[in-house]
């Protein structure tokens, strides 16, 4: 090293005495805190010599470093065992635990990665030269090849996850603690190592056949898995990568009992060298059974994601697929979500003839419309900029302006659909604000389009305020989903169900209204002969609008009926109602409506109006006489409204069924669509039974607060999050009372 580049010698100042003196001026417990010391920093602080916080703390007799020798020969069964232990750790990492508590606790992995090897040849369980008799044999070499591939798998996974929107620590831990996971080394190098290992194991004489085959299966699986994880896989071939992995999974599971785990080859002591500022944390114990399930799940989910490639180039098909994928049970892991996200945001997916948001707009409000006629985009502006532009050119420019404005909210919407289920709901409450702003801007462009259309004399051909209509429709769809996800995630308490189903019904009714405007306009165009009904685009459009209308109305009616039922249960005091000494109904309503208060439209109903609707017979604890009278009269509005709403919902569901997954533009997610549809139908049927039973069980009770009682036991089922899709529709159970 050159003399001149040497850094200056550090100067050491002893401040002990100064510090001690300064401390004496303080009382115990008196804190000197500046504004920059945050809670986050206080949490990050560690106390030296506290064994739970100080990773360097040694118990009496404890050594700083582990004493596992990675060059000691291992049994063939131990090789199988270690491979499976590594798989368990890998899957634990996939579910969200950091590498420091999973794979990086392996001495083998650590030895390969640290000190950092300059070449793959240097990545050995040892560094430098060792005597020949210490050189690893065939089994350790096979383990090394396997470990190298595991590490490269992690590298690929991190690349894919960080390439998309994800939340560090919540979704996934990408931290590698300054270990470089062979980022620069290409796939084929790892393949060669694995192939060589397979060859050696095949020709190794002292192996029983079942163990030999168990080892080879694992090496082969690792090859296939690594290939499938390669981020540079061409889109068109994605689907070919997953089936071979699946074929190797069962043999791995079957041969797992042959393995002999080596727990001593994993140690938390390695954490001390990974990060000194983090408390020691236990190794995550993941059972093979659970790890295997996760592995299967990743493979199935990724394989499912590859179907996205074959979807029709229709943004609603995309939307249906994303929604269905997010709703898969068990929920797809972060890697699988990133995998789908990468396909969605791949240039090949996005490069469609017409931009995806424009296709979306066209598919709802501009079918076969002169506004979105392709030829409008072929027109050139006049050479003389002072000359007026042709109206059709103006239309294309206006539409382009709007689509450009819409692209960010649109992207945000899709990004939200790719998040974990909890985030999806919360992110959507932010996304709707963006769409609310977009709607205001859509109104401005709509005015211009209206003007041009009037100039052209084609007013009757074009839906008035189409862009506003489209934006509003999408926003309402999201608001509905936010509420439905709230039920699914057990956010609401039973005594809020009436109110939340009522809100859902209001939102769905708004959307149904929007759709009926669209459909009326479409009918007029057909009536005046502007549209040829046999045009395939028209056939597809008509089916889609019908499907949407049925769905929105079914949602509106079913939730209205639910709201009415839960209102009755509140009056009957059959819903648990907490005392809530610190809260009022009005404050709780405000809190619940918070995500929607900024929207214009739909404006949230004022509390008084909301309360009047939800408490038609006065306060729940003291209903007026009309309640008992209505309850006892099977022909009263209380019952007939509920029954009519349910009946309507059932009819609309039939309408939805008729249009099928294709009409809903969910043909790429048909199974999930059918499943969700089935859940809706089942809920509606169950619900009908509940109404009938309840109605038949009412009797008069003189002197009681409500004046009536029901001779049945009513239970509101607890929501078990992540179980089935109809858990958004919480139908109470009604059973005979035990005498």
């Amino acid at each position, binding site marked *: 090293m050159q003399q001149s580049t040497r850094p200056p010698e550090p100067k050491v100042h002893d401040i002990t005495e100064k510090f001690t003196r300064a401390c004496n001026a303080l009382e115990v417990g008196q804190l000197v805190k500046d504004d920059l010391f945050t*809670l986050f920093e*206080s949490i990050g602080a560690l106390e030296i010599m506290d064994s*739970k916080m100080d990773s360097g703390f040694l118990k009496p007799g404890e050594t700083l470093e582990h004493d596992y020798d990675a060059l000691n020969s291992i049994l063939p069964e131990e090789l199988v065992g270690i491979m499976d232990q590594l798989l368990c750790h890998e899957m634990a990492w996939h579910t969200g635990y950091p590498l420091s508590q999973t794979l990086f606790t392996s001495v083998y992995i650590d030895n390969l990665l640290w000190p950092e090897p300059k070449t793959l040849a240097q990545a050995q369980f040892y560094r430098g030269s060792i005597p020949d008799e210490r050189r690893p044999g065939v089994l350790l070499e096979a383990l090394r090849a396997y470990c190298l591939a595991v590490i490269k798998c992690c590298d690929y996974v991190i690349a894919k996850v960080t390439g998309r929107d994800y939340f560090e620590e919540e979704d996934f831990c990408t931290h590698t603690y300054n270990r470089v996971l062979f980022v620069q080394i290409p796939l084929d190098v790892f393949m060669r190592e694995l192939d060589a290992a397979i060859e050696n194991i095949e020709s190794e004489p002292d192996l029983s056949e079942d163990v030999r085959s168990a080892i080879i299966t694992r090496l082969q699986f690792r090859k296939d898995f690594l290939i499938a994880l390669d981020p540079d896989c061409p889109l068109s071939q994605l689907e070919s990568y997953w089936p071979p992995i699946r074929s190797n999974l069962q043999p791995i599971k079957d041969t797992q009992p042959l393995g002999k785990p080596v727990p001593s080859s994993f140690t938390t002591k390695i954490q001390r060298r990974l990060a000194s500022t983090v408390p020691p*944390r236990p190794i995550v114990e993941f059972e093979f059974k659970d790890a295997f399930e996760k592995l299967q799940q990743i493979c199935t989910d990724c394989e499912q994601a590859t179907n996205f490639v074959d979807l029709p180039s229709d943004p609603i098909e995309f939307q249906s697929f994303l929604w269905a994928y997010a709703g898969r049970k068990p929920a797809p892991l972060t890697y699988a979500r990133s995998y789908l996200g990468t396909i969605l945001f791949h240039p090949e997916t996005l490069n469609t003839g017409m931009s995806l948001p424009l296709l979306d707009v066209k598919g709802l409000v501009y079918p076969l419309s002169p506004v979105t006629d392709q030829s409008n985009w072929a027109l050139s502006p006049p050479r003389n900029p002072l000359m007026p532009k042709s109206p059709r050119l103006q239309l294309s420019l206006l539409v382009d302006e709007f689509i450009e404005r819409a692209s960010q909210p649109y992207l945000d919407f899709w990004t939200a659909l790719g998040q974990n289920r909890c985030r999806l709901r919360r992110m959507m409450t932010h996304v709707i604000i963006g769409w609310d702003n977009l709607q205001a801007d859509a109104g401005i462009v709509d005015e211009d389009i209206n003007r041009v259309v009037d100039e052209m004399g084609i007013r009757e051909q074009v839906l008035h305020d189409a862009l506003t209509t489209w934006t509003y429709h999408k926003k309402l769809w999201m608001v509905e989903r936010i509420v439905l996800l709230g039920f699914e*995630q*057990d956010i609401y308490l039973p005594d809020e169900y009436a109110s939340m189903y009522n809100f859902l019904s209001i939102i769905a009714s708004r959307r149904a209204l929007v759709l009926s405007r669209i459909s009326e306009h479409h009918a007029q165009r057909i009536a005046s002969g502007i549209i040829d009904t046999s045009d395939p685009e028209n056939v597809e459009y008509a089916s889609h609008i019908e499907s949407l209308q049925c769905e929105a109305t079914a949602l509106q009616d079913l939730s209205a009926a639910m709201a009415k039922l839960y209102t009755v249960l509140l009056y009957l005091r059959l819903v648990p109602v907490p005392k809530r000494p610190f809260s009022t109904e009005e404050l709780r309503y405000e*809190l*619940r409506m918070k995500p929607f208060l900024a929207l214009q439209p739909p404006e949230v109903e004022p509390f008084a109006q909301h309360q009047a609707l939800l408490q038609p017979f006065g306060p729940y604890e003291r209903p007026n006489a009309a309640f008992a009278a209505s309850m006892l009269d099977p022909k009263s509005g209380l019952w007939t409204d509920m029954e009519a709403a349910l009946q309507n919902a059932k009819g609309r569901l039939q309408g939805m069924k008729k249009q099928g997954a294709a009409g809903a533009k969910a043909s790429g997610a048909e199974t999930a669509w059918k499943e969700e549809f089935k859940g809706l139908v089942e809920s509606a049927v169950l619900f009908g039974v509940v109404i009938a039973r309840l109605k038949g069980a009412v009797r008069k009770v003189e002197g009681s607060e409500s004046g009536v009682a029901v001779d049945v036991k009513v239970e509101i089922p607890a929501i078990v999050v992540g179980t089935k899709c109809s858990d958004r529709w919480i139908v109470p159970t009604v059973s005979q009372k035990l005498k």
Partner: protein
Amino acid sequence: MSAIANDSDKQASSSGELQYIQYEGDKEETYLPAIRQLISKDLSEPYSIYVYRYFLYQWGDLCFMALDPLTNALIGVVVCKLETHRSGTFRGYIAMLAVQESHRGKGIATKLVCMAIDAMAARQADEIVLETEVTNTASMKLYERLGFLRSKRLHRYYLNGNTAFRLVLYLKAGTALKRPDMGDGAMGYGRYEGGDNAMFGAEAIA
């Protein structure tokens, strides 16, 4: 009348013998070790002393303790903070709540939380929030009885990988409409939208 008095009679009689007091800064030597011990008992990873001091130094008057009148032993404690949140609300936060195992089920935690809420309400808090594990039904029941609602589900919120609910109690009308003064309404999708309350919620009450 304070809300505590409205609460069930059962706890008033059974916990009546305990002494409920407010923490004060000069009591650190007397109480902090016991507070730490009580709270860290149920934590896989203990908070450093700075976490406790962070709260107690700034909001000692929002910390309440239940003491055994004979031995002065700490039976229960609640630790809070109250400050302007970046959403613009004056937000109270219940950071820690713990009651000794042998004394649970007697309404001590409820009483401590009620005292904290009363104190924060007296200081014009707009809202009070906290997180609790989705599986901690006793804790959720306690808060929901008082008026809290679940506002968010937080995936893998805790270090152990468990999911949390954020619970919220509005104390004033108009809280939902409050906006930040500085105009930096950065509604980012941060890890902790609720603020900087990383992984809190020592809810050792049941």
